[in-house]
């Protein structure tokens, strides 16, 4: 499958509670992304920041003219995300993708080729990490596989797509579990505590998939290992190019070696990463 480097047309930047935004871009000749895959994007005609930014494809829709409309869920944290949040409808921005390796073991389960990958799934998102789980939640829901969506943040404003994930998880036969550190939505506390409680009380998960801050994913890996549950994590590292040329996005593996987040990743098995 070939990633295509092209100019995408900005359709709109939907206002979400700050600092979050949802950027929709129409790309003429891009293949649909698999759950967990990403694109490299930048603002229009901007000399700075110099490098493109990696964004999970959060949502996508094939248009009747053969183009693909992708949605990127973002959080303004620096110059790159500022530039993207400031995009104006009609602007043309560089889009390279889809890139990387997505949630392959789960995808294998959905397509029926991986017999062990059935049963209940847990998806665990920390804040903006929910962007990396959007396509996966849709795929699970479509395939009729039940999943619970664990959504954690510092405050209610970080659970920006809670309604989307509530709808998808409930339709699948699962539910949305929310936690916030300040108690402004859901239970007060960490989402990993909620996950651990469910795993301990025998929720019967056969898969755990996560995307979020490093500490959260490391904790999920620990909980999954203790509960004997397999799983995957969509990791994030600073990236130079996104397609394997700069070798800048190394992820340290348990075997002592490195893997490139942009090619072998961004999705890795929970038990292969040296958290």
């Amino acid at each position, binding site marked *: 499958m*070939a990633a295509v*480097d092209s100019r995408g047309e900005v359709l709109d930047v939907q206002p979400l509670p700050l600092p979050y935004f949802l950027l929709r871009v129409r790309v003429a000749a891009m293949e649909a992304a698999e759950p967990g895959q990403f694109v490299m994007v*930048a603002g229009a005609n901007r000399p*700075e920041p*110099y490098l493109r930014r990696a964004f999970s494809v959060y949502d996508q829709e094939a248009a009747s003219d053969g183009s693909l409309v992708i949605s990127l869920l973002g959080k303004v944290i620096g110059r790159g995300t500022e530039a993207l949040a400031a995009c104006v409808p009609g602007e043309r921005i560089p889009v390279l993708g889809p890139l990387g390796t997505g949630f392959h073991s789960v995808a294998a389960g959905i397509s029926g080729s991986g017999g062990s990958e059935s049963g209940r799934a847990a998806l665990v998102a920390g804040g903006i990490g929910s962007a990396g789980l959007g396509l996966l939640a849709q795929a699970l829901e479509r395939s009729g596989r039940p999943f619970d969506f664990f959504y954690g943040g510092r405050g209610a404003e970080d659970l920006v797509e809670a309604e989307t994930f509530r709808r998808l998880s409930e339709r699948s036969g699962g539910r949305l579990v929310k936690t916030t550190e300040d108690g402004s939505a859901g239970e007060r506390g960490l989402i990993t505590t909620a996950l651990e409680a469910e795993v301990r009380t025998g929720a019967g998960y056969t898969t755990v998939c996560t995307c979020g801050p490093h500490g959260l994913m490391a904790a999920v890996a620990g909980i999954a290992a203790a509960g004997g549950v397999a799983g995957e994590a969509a990791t994030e590292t600073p990236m130079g190019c996104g*397609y394997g040329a700069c*070798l*800048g*996005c*190394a992820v340290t593996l348990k075997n002592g070696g490195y893997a490139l987040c942009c090619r072998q990743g961004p999705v890795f098995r929970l038990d292969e990463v040296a958290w």
Partner: protein
Amino acid sequence: MSAGARGLPSPDLSTRVGPLRLQNPILTASGTFGYGLEFAERADLHRLGGLVTKGLSLEPLAGNPPVRIAETRGGMLNSIGLQNIGVDRFLSEVLPGLKDLPPKVIVNLFGYAQDEYVRLAERVEPYEGVAAVELNVSCPNVSKGGIEFGHDPEILSRLVRRVRSATGKPIVVKLSPNVTSPQALAGAAKEGGADILSAVNTFVGMAIDTATRRPILSTIRGGLSGPAIKPLALRIVFDVAREVDLPVIGIGGVETVDDVLEFLLAGASAVQVGTALFRDPRTAERLVDGLRERLRAEGIPSVDSLIGAAARPE
């Protein structure tokens, strides 16, 4: 010569860099284009003047732990640590796919000891698809080796002489900017028998995360590249080209046609494009087209007539 648009003759982009004849002066820099084939689906390799491979060592190297890169204003710092598949795998698995393409393949070699450079040169010697070797004597990202060869004129001269005796292929020596006088090192490379100089490698720099109060890169220091270094690199190319009688390939923040022209005018016979490829994988081929257009528009018949023009008296 064919007539181009607007009836003007199509300019001659070909350039001679010492013993190398290139179809145009645009090459891709080591460490920014993988081994070449990774780009086949995103860039038109056929149109490049040449490509320089990722630095190759005798044995595969895993590279440095993360974090390996940090973006800075106008560029980036890297500390990849020469991760590579090793020279043997390159020759058996990658070179066959590159050797029949029009761009000249220049193999970048890296060793921890003089003997390793010699053995690397011997290893690639029988392969016709290798047009030249580029000696990486100036990588700032390894704790030992490389950089010391590029910082001492006597050591550099001896190293090049030993590689010279091991290969009949053109030798390119990639100069470090992190020295007081790159010209002195350039002179030493020539004395050792180098055919071509490439200038420059990255500038040693660092970045600090103000939130954690720690250096961003795992190795603390890294190599700065991108538009931020262009004026610095240009000055070195100008000085080296004027003082040392060897052809120079200019490297450092090349991204626009004007950047290419500046390096040519400063005395470079060709340029390598690096970090700009991360921003846009098609930068190099875009520069080939842009350069042709510019020369045609300005009625400049060939690249040759530009080389070193800024150093000549008015």
